[in-house]
């Protein structure tokens, strides 16, 4: 392995002094990433690494147990699928990851930079505090001055390095003519250092070097917590995306070749096999099939497609194969235009002001006014600039939002960690706060409340002979309806010459009679009056029998809905599926209000209308037709099985197949919000006690240090108090 030049600038002498260790793996651009979801112990690590290293074409392999990933450095050209097969033969489940979907490198660098600042601030704070204790316990004259000078020598460079995030934030806010939390922080740090330097030069009694650097340390701790929480959620969300390496089969000169979807262009001929998702918009050139459009529209009844039909990206081919000529690829596809709805809706949601910003909006002007008043008052009273500036600095230091800076991140870190262990991934920083305000929940139907897998209804109503024939025919096909019939079990008739007719169904010969299982018009009557999902089985020329299907609810949906209702929430369902299917599912799930036949725009409009009524909506959905609604809603959630676009649009992702975690997430969010408010109150109480002392000129650096540390520690401890009952 070659040494990788480290792109980070040398920001402190320590970095220059410590050579970067080049023997530890760095994910290189050409590294192959594998997800190993089931590894959990050193034996797994050992066997995975050994299996990979045994291959001649692998230069090195390193497993990261925290991320449950393997980094493989190949020699030459190695196919990720071959590595997956190697691991499978060693008894390990692995999936290839798309490295371009993972932005972990930049995130890691930012995290390390923040940790480095935190470490430097901690080191400097400890040393300065040690010297300050000596001053407080009675060092005088030359000794005190020397201690102050040493403190300055440590604190000034340390603040210059560690305080950069705050100075940059304050500069950004000021150049946009706004006030953010960073402005009073930066001002307090600079003013404290300035007056302390002046005091030290005049061999004064009080210097606030310790306060300035401790302030940096506490605030960086808050930032780091916040960062860790968000990075963990983001990397888990990115991994979901990276698992879907988008590939398509392009036919060039009659030879099918697997290529990344990004390489396709208009006019290409693409082969989509049964079960595959169509990667482009196009026209069918060969083959006939049934398409599942539920990801785009919510519609559960398959649509037939034959030569000349238009198909859209995002549809799934149920029976196939289809050969498609691409008419639009990538950003021009219907799928992407739907995704653009999201961008529009997200602009609307940016209006939400996080609790921390609300606090800052109240707090920042108040602090500045207070400091200016204190300075002006003392200036008038004594006419001494030095005294007045010292008092103003003390006011800024004491009111400085250490506790406020920790109040939100400490709670969100604790809550997100607890939720992550229950399978709820919080992607957005303010999602928890918004979740706590929700009073209405809107569910999508297909794929969200239901599994999107059909189940046979009233199987026993079908005549026995027809049942046996249907079973035999169903076993010859991979169409979802056939799979559902085959899952019924029982004795199958002896049907010979079973063959699948793409786009229609399965046929064969039974007792010398032709038998068919398939869609209306091919097997059974021409026009089907039945509204639900169904298929027909026909024996010879006799009467055809209808087999009905329904989409089954996910496990635990009824209980989840009941629990949400008990928590005082209104529940609605909106689906693009037909009214009949929607109301049947609504009854089964115990939802009173259900809207069927909704277009994506209808869903967005309905949610906007609810918002206009002053309601706060939680949208739960999984399809492309939900993305607009997900982005419009106050807060949104999608199951892990959702389309990538839907997961990107939502604030939270539910891992696993059950919704049980949803009511608990809601309870946790409300508890977290209460805890945040409590923390703000604690921080305010400290200020109410300490500020009069500062304004009266009674605050010493000792009192400032005590108030600051005590409030920060109380707030952190309060946040760690179990949020999860």
């Amino acid at each position: 392995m070659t040494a990788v030049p480290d792109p980070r600038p040398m920001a402190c002498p320590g970095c220059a002094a410590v050579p970067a260790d080049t023997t530890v793996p760095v994910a290189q651009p050409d590294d192959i990433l594998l997800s190993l979801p089931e590894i959990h112990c050193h034996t797994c690590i050992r066997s995975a690494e050994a299996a990979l290293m045994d291959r001649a074409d692998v230069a090195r392999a390193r497993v990261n147990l925290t991320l449950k990933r393997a980094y493989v450095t190949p020699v030459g050209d190695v196919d990720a699928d071959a590595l997956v097969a190697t691991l499978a033969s060693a008894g390990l489940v692995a999936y290839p990851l798309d490295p371009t979907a993972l932005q972990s490198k930049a995130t890691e660098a930012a995290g390390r930079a923040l940790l480095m600042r935190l470490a430097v601030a901690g080191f400097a704070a400890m040393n300065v505090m040690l010297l300050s204790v000596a001053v407080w316990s009675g060092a005088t004259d030359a000794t005190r001055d020397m201690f102050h000078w040493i403190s300055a020598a440590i604190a000034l460079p340390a603040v210059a390095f560690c305080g950069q995030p705050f100075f940059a934030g304050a500069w950004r806010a000021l150049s946009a003519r706004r006030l953010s939390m960073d402005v009073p922080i930066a001002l307090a740090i600079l003013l404290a250092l300035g007056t302390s330097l002046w005091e030290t030069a005049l061999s004064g009694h009080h210097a606030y070097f310790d306060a300035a650097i401790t302030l940096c340390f506490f605030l960086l701790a808050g930032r780091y917590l916040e960062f860790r929480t968000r990075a963990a959620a983001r990397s888990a969300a990115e991994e979901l995306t990276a698992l879907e390496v988008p590939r398509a089969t392009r036919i060039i000169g009659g030879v099918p070749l697997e290529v990344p979807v990004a390489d396709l262009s208009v006019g290409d001929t693409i082969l989509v096999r049964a079960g595959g998702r169509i990667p482009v918009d196009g026209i069918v050139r060969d083959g006939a099939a049934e398409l599942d459009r539920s990801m785009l529209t919510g519609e559960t009844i398959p649509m037939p497609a034959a030569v000349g039909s238009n198909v859209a990206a995002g549809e799934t081919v149920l029976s196939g194969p289809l050969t498609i000529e691409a008419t639009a690829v990538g950003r021009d596809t219907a799928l992407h235009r739907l995704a653009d709805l999201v961008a529009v809706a997200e602009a609307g949601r940016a209006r939400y002001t996080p609790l921390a910003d609300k606090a800052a909006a109240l707090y920042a002007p108040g602090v500045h006014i207070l400091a200016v008043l204190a300075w002006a008052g003392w200036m008038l009273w004594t006419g001494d600039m030095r005294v007045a500036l010292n008092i103003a600095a003390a006011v800024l230091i004491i009111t400085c939002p250490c506790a406020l800076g920790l109040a939100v991140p400490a709670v969100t870190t604790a809550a997100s960690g607890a939720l992550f262990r229950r399978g709820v991934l919080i992607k957005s920083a303010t999602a928890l706060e918004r979740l706590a305000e929700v009073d209405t929940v809107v569910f999508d139907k297909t794929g969200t409340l239901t599994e999107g897998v059909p189940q046979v209804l009233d199987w026993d109503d079908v005549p026995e002979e027809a049942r046996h024939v249907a079973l035999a025919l169903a076993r010859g096909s991979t169409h979802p309806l056939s799979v559902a019939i085959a899952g019924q079990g029982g004795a199958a008739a002896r049907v010979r010459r079973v063959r699948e007719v793409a786009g229609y169904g399965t046929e064969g010969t039974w007792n010398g009679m032709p038998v068919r299982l398939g869609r209306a018009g091919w097997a059974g009557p021409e026009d089907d009056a039945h509204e639900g999902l169904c298929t027909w089985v026909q024996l010879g020329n006799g009467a055809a029998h209808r087999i009905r299907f329904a989409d089954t609810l996910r496990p635990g949906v009824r209980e989840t809905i009941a629990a949400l209702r008990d928590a005082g929430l209104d529940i609605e369902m909106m689906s693009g599926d037909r009214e009949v299917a929607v109301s049947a599912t609504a009854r089964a799930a115990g939802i009173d209000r259900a809207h069927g036949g909704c277009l994506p725009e209808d869903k967005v409009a309905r949610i906007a209308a609810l918002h206009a009524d002053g309601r706060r909506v939680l949208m739960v959905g999984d399809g492309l037709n939900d993305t607009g609604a997900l982005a419009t809603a106050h807060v949104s959630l999608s199951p892990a099985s959702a389309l990538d676009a839907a997961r990107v649009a939502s604030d939270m992702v539910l891992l696993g197949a059950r919704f049980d975690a949803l009511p608990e997430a809601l309870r946790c969010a409300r508890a977290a919000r209460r805890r945040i408010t409590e923390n703000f109150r604690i921080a305010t109480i400290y200020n109410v006690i300490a500020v009069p002392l500062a304004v009266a000129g009674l605050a010493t650096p000792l009192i400032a240090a005590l108030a600051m540390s005590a409030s920060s520690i109380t707030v952190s401890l309060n946040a760690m108090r179990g949020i999860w009952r």
Partner: protein
Amino acid sequence: MNVLAYLIPVSLMLGAVGLIGFLYTLRSRQYEDPEGDSRRILDETWDDRPKP
């Protein structure tokens, strides 16, 4: 009080040693897989001789 002339630099030096040690662990990416590292120590493969 002359002892301060030695003690203060000594204490700062010791602190700096700790800081540089931490920066070394940070730069050699020892915080990237805390789970894995805590398990790898249980691996017996290189117990008898060092990894080549």
